[in-house]
């Protein structure tokens, strides 16, 4: 392979049809409340870990919905499971269980 001094940039586009949706389906099956998220961001605003570092649980949830799970493990491990997100969620999503299920799914579909 020739070296041209640049590489073909990887697309930032979410290619929904190419993505693997098993993780999402697993989480939805085991914690159905996950589906009613409206991405208000309350969870991220109150998040203890998010207060200390770049950690956006709202965005992670959206990315999971789109099947984008690269880096998910590293990101989700920033969560301290403190539960503030659950207290502020306007839609009553069991956010902590969502996180446990995501962790479980990561392990399952690794």
């Amino acid at each position, binding site marked *: *392979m*020739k070296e*041209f*001094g*640049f*590489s*073909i*940039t*990887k*697309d930032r586009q979410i290619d929904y049809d190419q993505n693997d949706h098993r993780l999402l389906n697993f989480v939805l099956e085991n914690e159905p409340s996950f589906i009613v998220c409206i991405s208000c961001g309350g969870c991220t605003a109150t998040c203890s870990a998010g207060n200390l570092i770049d950690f956006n649980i709202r965005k992670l949830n959206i990315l999971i919905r789109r099947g984008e799970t690269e880096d998910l493990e590293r990101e989700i491990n920033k969560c301290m499971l403190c539960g503030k997100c659950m207290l502020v969620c306007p839609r009553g999503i069991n956010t902590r269980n969502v996180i446990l299920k995501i962790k479980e799914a990561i392990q399952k579909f690794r």
Partner: protein
Amino acid sequence: MKTEGKKRVWEDYQKEIAEDHYYFQRSCIRQNFFPGSETAFLKILTGELGRDIMDDPHHTTCTGIGYHADIVPFDTTMTVVARHFALMTENGYENMIISCVTSFGIYTEILETWKHFPEVLARARRYLKKATGREFNIPKNVTHASDIIYKFKDQIAAKAKYRLINQQTGEPLKVVEHIGCHYSKMFPSWGVGGAEFPYVLQGMVESWGGEVIDYPERRHCCGFGFRQYIVRANRGYSVANSKKKFESMKPYKPDFVVCNCPGCTMFMDKWQYTISEMEGKTYDEYGFGIPVLTYEEMAGLVLGYDPWELGLQMHQVQSEPLLDKMGIPYDPAEKYKTASGKTFRLPAEPTSLKVCV
């Protein structure tokens, strides 16, 4: 696909194209990389169609690439364009043909600016006067060179020696048409057929017997992107765009790509080589790549011009498979001969892209 729906859109985007007496603006890229194209264009207009066209040695670049690369300021570009209008006026012409889509974008942008901001026009006149002592009229009609070919497509068809038909199967050739972004995406009403379903190239292809394929990433930019290409580290962005298009068109098995923008022709052509070198991928069935032609080259082939005269050997992706399909004879021995009969230096052979030597 409902053709009647497309036809309705095309009817909405008809533009006025002058009949005769044109002042010609060349393209930097086209004359450098595809030198046969503009020659063929002039030959078709004067020789085949008997039109009056002035190819003026005094005009310069439009500065478009410098402008889009944030190097040349708008006022400079505007003054250069004003100078070209002055040259046109001085030579007694009112209709301008622009060979380059980047230039065409520059001209339309400036003309639209002047329309909405007369004070900018006044400034342009002042600058030009100050710099060169010249004055100018705004052209009556500004068209892209592809518009002209589009206008006379049926006349060309009538004179056609070859048609865009696969001689072996009798099927129409499958053609990917690619319009330069600056042709109609900025000002849809300046382009034949508008921005979403442009008709300028499709009209030619259909008139000459081919069939245009409408693949999902049809609208996507070739990736030239000026700054993306000019800075080497950014070329990855540029090539990624072309790659997206090739991936999308591949299943349709196109016989060739035709572009109206010199930049697109160059990048759609040369990035195929780059991708083949970097990833070992080609996008046709046999590893030759998909030939990328300018519309002048396409017209020239239809009119029976010699492929080597047209400069097809200057392309990265070689067109012999296409010539074979169209039944156009060619002499391999003549491929790399100059006008004086010398053989010029042969290009190095690519690693994975197949070429006919």
